[in-house]
């Protein structure tokens, strides 16, 4: 039985913000199915009482003194922007016009 359906893969593509083609969808569905069946092996391990590890280094919040340090200028920060205006990143419209008005 397939671990993942073509419809689920199409949903994942939308969640991932990938405008995949129909052809890619067919290929990806088959490949993700093979991969998911292989990685599902982790389920064989009895680990109910085992704590999860998110990170190999014990992490605590790392804070620095609240003092002004050097940072990028606005020009540097915007230097790679596909589109910039008035020292800001310009983006396509976010709201539908009838909602925005």
């Amino acid at each position: 039985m397939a671990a993942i359906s073509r419809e689920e893969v199409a949903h994942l593509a939308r969640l991932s913000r990938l405008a995949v083609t129909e052809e890619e969808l067919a290929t990806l569905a088959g490949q993700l199915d093979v991969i998911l069946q292989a990685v599902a092996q982790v389920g064989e391990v009895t680990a109910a009482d085992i704590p999860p590890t998110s990170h190999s280094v014990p992490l605590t919040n790392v804070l620095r003194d609240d003092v002004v340090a050097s940072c990028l200028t606005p020009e540097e920060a915007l230097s790679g922007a596909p589109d910039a205006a008035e020292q800001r990143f310009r983006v396509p419209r976010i709201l539908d016009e009838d909602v925005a008005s």
Partner: protein
Amino acid sequence: MTDLTSFSAAELAGLVARGESSAVEVTQAHLDRISAVDDRVHAFLHVDTEGALAAARDVDSRRAAGEPLGPLAGVPVAVKDVLTTKGVPTTAGSKILADWRPPYDSTIVRRLRAAGTVMLGKTNMDEFAMGSSTEYSAFGPTHNPWDLSRIPGGSGGGSSAALAAYETPLSIGSDTGGSIRQPGAVTGTVGVKPTYGGTSRYGLVAFSSSLDTPGPCARTVLDAALLHEAIGGHDPLDSTSIPAPVPDVAAAARLGASGDLTGVRLGVVREFAGEGAEPGVLAAFRAAVETLTKLGAEVVEVSCPHFQYALPAYYLIAPSECSSNLARFDGVRFGLRVGDDGVRSLEEVMSATREAGFGPEVKRRVMLGTYALSSGYYDAYYGQAQKVRTLISRDFTTAFEQVDALISPTTPFVAFPVGARTADPYQMYLADLFTIPSNLYGGPGISVPCGLADGLPVGLQVMAPTMADDRMYRVAAALESAVGPFTPPAL
């Protein structure tokens, strides 16, 4: 005079320090070599000729002024294109960053400059460091100098191939599941994944943040150690950086080069010694074990029962983190933007940009990670993988109560022909079978050439406890002193 490209980094630094060669001469020799062979190898995505010669002139003038120079001053280095370089293109092997020139240097690159090394350029890699062959680079594959019809490993195939082709004596890679060690193994060069947190991730284009580890690549163990010391150590700009001194890896490499391993206990990982690897790889590994024994090491078998689950756990954890990290490529702040026609919405532009900018392996992993993190599947996939990660770390801890370091083949197979594994992504993933456990645990690993199989290089992996990087350098240097050298055919 012997061709300057044939020297080790330590030798080149000596030539420059003694004034027997200038940094400009050393740099020009490597730039000439790149011009002569890189159209066939394609190790470089960008060669910074002007920047390199300027850096070399700076070293020469500082030497002339009597200023003290570091142990690698004047030595060329190539940097994997996953580390930011101010004003110099940084693509991470992806079309989505094809024209990006970062406004800042990564910590690793800043330290390389401070050490007086000369950055030749940026090396080819699988897109966003996802792959084991460099075939997933958006800019075409790199070819293995041992056999140009074969892959150089990945994701850092460019950095390792550049060493094997004598285009550079030093290079930098990044290792998330084996991307330094596996290319090292299949190109007959040395590749080191330091302890996680031992080298800074600031300015490293993020793939899987709990696993990503920048590290040194070289043709000799001592050169790798010298580079490790130049780039390693605490960085306040990386919150996961370990606030402790770099282990004394250069001294360990020099100690190991004496060829005496008396008193060193090594463990062969039982689960990795018998299956899953090609016969030629296993034969070279067994010969290396015999050599290590002759050098005085005591070699015993140890069991790490959960290592068999490392590959599936990794292919849940790494894609999960990548699906989150790569959300930043949205066509807003840097890189490609597609479909911004005044009609399409922001979300449609994002989806069109990512569709056009990402290659097939990146799309697979982003979607796999999105799946593993989604509600309903989280506990069975990502949550369970994190528990397996705990068990793998415990396997390491238990093993290191019995032995000083663990050994295995670096990768199950020698360099395979270009195109041989791209049709079945999971077959490509198997290349990292032996290297992934160290990434999940966080400890260091090194690959050192140990022999040939059918005329192609085989690597031995030495894995050490967290922050005991020096141990593996000693073992690798001892083996290096007793086998080889392994030199590819002339290009």
